[in-house]
């Protein structure tokens, strides 16, 4: 009898193998034309070819550096603004409608405007990733500050906490779970920002590769960078989850 953990791992492997085999079978048996769906073996062969070339990894590096810098800058500014607005009794209500309006705007649509302002280089992709990341991180951080249990605030007050102590020892640690979950969601936003920026106009990056491949109807050429991107995004997500586990150890402990 396998343990629950083993069942989960086996289940995942089964799904992965089934999808790859079905995909390969569909194209080998000619049920769907390879032109439309490529095939795992074609993708693997192309990846092996591209992986040996520095150029492919340069494009990967360009996209990741755009996404990652947008993530870090957007995260930092978002956390700072969220903390500020959460702590201040007046700044929050004043800024709230603007933040919500900005959040309802489909921010990828800012892309053309950003290209117009800062050109087709790194800056437009960085800013697009930044704009996608900053608002949700800010809203989550704000929520993390506001969600504090009033009893805990009263505990701090009756123990004579200063305002700074209230912030650093209660409000900030209380917001950490919210901040971490926002950063996790922000990873995919940052990648979306970088790729969409490259679609609009670029000279390098994964979005650029995909755009080029689609211009020559090269399905395999579209799918290889997509899958590489998926793998990298997945790895980044795992890293954030592992960091959360460490930082939030106190949440997972239970009485046994």
């Amino acid at each position: 009898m396998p343990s629950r953990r083993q069942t989960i791992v086996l289940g995942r492997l089964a799904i992965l193998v089934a999808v790859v085999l079905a995909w390969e079978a569909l194209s080998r048996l000619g049920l769907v034309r390879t032109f439309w769906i490529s095939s795992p073996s074609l993708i693997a062969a192309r990846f092996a070819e591209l992986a040996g070339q520095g150029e492919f990894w340069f494009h990967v590096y360009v996209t990741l550096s755009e996404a990652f810098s947008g993530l870090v800058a957007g995260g930092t500014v978002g956390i700072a603004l969220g903390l500020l607005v959460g702590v201040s009794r007046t700044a929050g209500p004043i800024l709230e409608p603007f933040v919500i309006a900005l959040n309802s705007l489909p921010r990828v649509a800012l892309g053309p405007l950003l290209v117009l302002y800062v050109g087709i280089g790194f800056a437009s992709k960085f800013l697009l990733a930044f704009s996608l990341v900053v608002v949700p991180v800010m809203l989550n951080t704000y929520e993390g500050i506001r969600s504090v249990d009033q009893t805990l605030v009263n505990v701090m007050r009756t123990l004579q906490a200063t305002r700074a102590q209230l912030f650093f020892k209660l409000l900030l640690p209380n917001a950490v779970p919210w901040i971490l979950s926002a950063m996790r969601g922000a990873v995919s936003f940052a990648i979306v920002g970088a790729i969409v920026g490259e679609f609009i106009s670029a000279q390098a990056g994964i979005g650029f590769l995909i755009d080029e491949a689609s211009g020559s109807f090269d399905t395999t050429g579209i799918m290889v960078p997509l899958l590489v991107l998926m793998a990298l995004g997945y790895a980044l997500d795992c890293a954030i989850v592992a960091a959360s586990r460490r930082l939030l150890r106190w949440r997972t402990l239970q009485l046994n």
Partner: protein
Amino acid sequence: MIMQGEYLIGGAASAHPGGGKGRPAIEIDRLHYSARDRHGRDVRILEDLSLTVAEGEFLAIVGPSGCGKSTALNFIAGLAAGHQSGSVRALGRPVQGISPGIGYMFQTHGLLPWRTIAQNVELGLELKGTPPAERAAASARLLRELGLAGFERHYPAELSGGMRQRVSLARTLATDPALLLMDEPFGALDAQTKLLVQDGFVAFWETYRKTVVFVTHDLAEAIFLADRIVVMSARPGRVKAQYAVPFARPRRLAAIRTDQAFSDLWERIWLDLEDEARSSMQGVAHA
């Protein structure tokens, strides 16, 4: 058969301390307080509340839900402000802002979940800037006395409800407050745990004899723990009656619960409380 007035102290407006000794630790004089509800109407919360607590006295306050018991505690602690008239003095000073020297234990444990048990107990000392070695010594001593030795490095999520409440007590005591305010601190515990925690707490209190104001809706708890019991009226809250608790210390729960005087006093207070509880329930129904 209930002996009329056997344990009753004075009238409703009497401000005399029953048990305890020495100068008053708390003096509330004709306190009036009303607050706006969400419809903008004035709701009178406390009306002409007068209460004196002697140094070293254990006072229990019972009353129907929403009668302003917790509000009264908040006024003593300095957490509430904006009363319309009257005065509140604690530890010989008028209360303005958060009063130093007061420990407040809330209905929920209020432990910071990301801090270990020892770090939670040391919180008040840490905020005051006490050196780490001194803090560690204080928390180790308190945790030992409250039967929690060995749990220093655990997190609150790993403890049972009764243990968390004891940690909360340890945190409240760590700063060595002269006055303890306790707002239904054992109210959330299951019946058996509550009896054990009460028994432990009474022994602890009998050792240190700090002034305590203990809000509860559990009459048996009030009788078992306190020197004197104040019954508050339904909102707007004021003192309706006061009772001296006749049991000698040290007290043990098992002995007191079987005493005839315990059930007499219980019934006597319940008669007072019943009317108020009813009118409080009607008040809720009309609101």
